[in-house]
C-alpha cells in the first residue's frame, strides 16, 4: 500500500539556473521519504540503530515528469514494490500539492546491509513478513 512519506516545500536553494528544482533534490526528497516507508515495514530509526542494518540503494530509476518551482508544495507517496530474502524495491511518486500533477516517479532497488560488516545480509523475518503484507499491487509503478 502507498503511504505518505514526505510533505515539504521546494526551497529556492534547490533551484538551478533553469528556474526549477534541480534533479539532485528529487533524489534528496526520495531519500527523506525512504526513511518513512522503511519505518512502515519495521525498519524504524530505532531498529536501524539497534540492529545495525538498513537497506542500501544499489540502483535507482527516476522519471522526471513535471518541473517544480521555488515555493511549490510537494507530497510523496511510497510503497514496497518487490521483496526477496536480501532485496527490497521501493517505489516513490511525488506530486505537486497545488496542481495535483505527478512530478516524478522513482524506483529504488536496495540490498539489506550490515552496517558493521558493510556487506549485504538477510532481511529479518518479521521485516520480510511486513514488507510482503504491505506490497503494492502489481502495476503500481506504471
Amino acid at each position, binding site marked *: 500500500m502507498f503511504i505518505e512519506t514526505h510533505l515539504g516545500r521546494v526551497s529556492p536553494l534547490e533551484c538551478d539556473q533553469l528556474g526549477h528544482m534541480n534533479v539532485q533534490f528529487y533524489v534528496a526528497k526520495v531519500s527523506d521519504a525512504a526513511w518513512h516507508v522503511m519505518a512502515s515495514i519495521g525498519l524504524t530509526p530505532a531498529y536501524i540503530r539497534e540492529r545495525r542494518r538498513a537497506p542500501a540503494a544499489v540502483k535507482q530509476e527516476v522519471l522526471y515528469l513535471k518541473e517544480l518551482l521555488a*515555493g511549490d508544495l510537494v507530497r510523496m507517496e511510497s510503497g514496497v514494490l518487490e521483496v526477496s530474502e536480501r532485496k527490497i524495491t521501493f517505489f516513490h511518486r511525488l506530486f505537486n500539492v497545488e496542481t495535483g500533477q505527478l512530478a516524478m516517479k522513482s524506483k529504488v532497488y536496495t540490498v539489506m546491509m550490515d552496517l558493521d560488516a558493510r556487506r549485504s545480509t538477510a532481511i529479518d523475518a518479521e521485516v520480510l513478513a511486513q514488507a510482503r503484507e504491505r506490497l503494492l499491487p502489481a502495476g503500481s509503478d506504471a
Partner: protein
Amino acid sequence: MTAVNEPGTKRVLVTGRGAVNMADCDQWGHMNVQFYLARASDAQAHLAARLGLGPRRLAREQLALRPLADRTLFKRELRGGDIHAIRSGIRAVHDDGTLDIASRMTNLGSGVESAAFETRLCLVGADDGAQPWPTDVLAAARALSGELPEMPAPPPMAAVLPPGPPPLERLLLTYRGSVEPWDCDADGVAPPRAHIARFNDAITHLFRAMQLDRKALLAAGTGSAALDYGITYHRALRAGTAIEVRSGVLAAGEKLYYIVHHVLDANDGGLYTTIIVAALFFDLKQRKSVPMPAAVRAAVERLIVHA
C-alpha cells in the same frame, strides 16, 4: 512507528513529513533549532494551500504570507535519522486580518512530541502592506478555526523583557553580517530560519561574554540547548541588508536562563526582529539538563545587571 494520519479533530491537518539529515545537526548531536523553524514555515505553507492559497496563487496575486510572531517550544531533541510529522490547525482568525496557527512536530519513531509552534501570520502585498485575505480563503480559515484540544496553547513565556525600547548601547554586539539571496524565500524575504541562523551565531559570542567557550563546553561533556523561543518580527528583512545582532542576558535561575537578541539594520539601527530565548545546559551523555556551570554564573549575573 507512530501513525500520524488521522488527527484527533477535523480541524487538525497533517502539514509536514520529513526526516532529519546529518547536515541538519549541530555539534550537540541534534537537529539545530533553525531547521525546526524551517519545517514549521513549510507546514504553514501547506496549511495555507489547504485554505486555497497555494504558492502559485500567492505569486499570481502578488501576495505573501508573513509571520508576525512565533512562539516555539523545543520539547525533545531530534537526531540524525529520526522521522517526523507536523500537524497544524488554526486557533483563531482575528478581525485585524491575522491568523493564529498552532503546529506540533512529532517524532514518528518514538511518538513523542518534539516541538510546539504557535505562529501569528498575516497576508501582505508586494509593497509589504497588510492585505485582506481573499474571501474564499477567509471563509475556509473561519470554517477550520476553533478549539484545538489536542494542541493546548502553551502558558505565556516568563515576562523577562523590560518594557520600552531596548537599551542597545548596553547590549553586546554578537553578530555582524548581511542577508543574502540564498537566505531568502521565493518572495525575497528572509524566513524565520534565516533569523534563527543569526541567533545561533550570536549565541557563540554571547557565550564568550559568559566566559564560556563552545569547544571547552563540548570537551567537558556539556551541551547547550534552547527550550523556548518568543520571537517578534517587526518588519520584513530582505537580501542585501547589512545587519547586526545585539544580545544580553535577562534572567537566570539554577538551570534556566533567559537571553535576548535584537536584529538591527546596521545602517539606521531600526529593529527587524526580537527574540527571547529560554535555554539551559545539558549532559551530552545523559541527555539531561544540568545546573549552570559555577564558573559561568558570576559572568551571567554581571551581564544581567548590564542589560
